[in-house]
């Protein structure tokens, strides 16, 4: 099985709060649009199954996690799966600079929600270019 050297960008995709969707969309913008040659994502739900295929994929891989709440589930689960978390992005760190804005819902982001997505994705891109 051939393993990829790409940086893994893994969001929590938390389904109960808007910041889970912000994390998801920011990670996907990075791997689909900004850095498709250097980065990829891996399903978080698959990572935690412990299947041999995903364990091999994660082993010693450089990962950037994106979490929507302080419980830091993406970061915790990636570490448990053997990935090396080189950066932990917290959505809340970015949204605190946008006080009073409405970011949308866990189903659909507003324009302000997508603004935060752009900022976080740019930060992830910078980090990927530093390490890849």
């Amino acid at each position, binding site marked *: 099985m051939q393993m990829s050297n790409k940086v893994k960008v893994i969001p929590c*995709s938390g*389904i109960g709060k808007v910041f889970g969707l912000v994390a998801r969309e920011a990670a996907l913008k990075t791997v689909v649009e900004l850095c498709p040659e250097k980065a990829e994502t891996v399903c978080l*739900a698959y990572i935690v*199954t412990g299947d041999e295929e995903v364990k091999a994929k994660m082993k010693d891989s450089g990962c950037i996690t994106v979490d929507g709440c302080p419980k830091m589930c993406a970061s915790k689960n990636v570490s448990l799966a053997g990935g090396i978390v080189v950066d932990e992005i917290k959505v809340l760190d970015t949204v605190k600079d946008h006080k009073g804005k409405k970011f949308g819902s*866990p*189903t*659909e982001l507003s324009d302000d929600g997508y603004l935060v997505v752009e900022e976080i994705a740019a930060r992830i891109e910078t980090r990927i270019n530093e390490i890849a």
Partner: protein
Amino acid sequence: MAILKVGILSCSGEECLGGTISRLATRKVLEEMKMVDTVTLCLPLYNAGGKEERNFASVFPTISVDGCDKLCAKRSTEKYSGRINGSIDVSKIIGNENALNTKIIRNNDLKEEHYRMVDEVAGEIVKAISDLEPNSYAGKTFRGCGCGD
């Protein structure tokens, strides 16, 4: 007083369209179809050891919604809470080719046809809720305290 609840665990897989459809269909059921008191359980938190999520799933009926046939949400629920009351494999509804599409994953990339898939999967979730045995959720209480009560 008994609280009647059904939990839905969606894979929300980030690698393919099936995960996006599973996430949106689960949200649709929560927001628009108020047939029972439905809650969604955060799968990453559940997997990271969230006691409240795991205890909920061991007390109340739970339905997993998976984007592909790896069935990660279903397997996690069975591993940590013992049993699953219903299971949806989105790839069986929208087809493998659609479910494993790695080009269209972001919400902004979705087109009318994808929202029709969301509606179809949401309908299947509702059907799975309707198929639950009434005694699987009646008369139970949950305080989220970690004791499983």
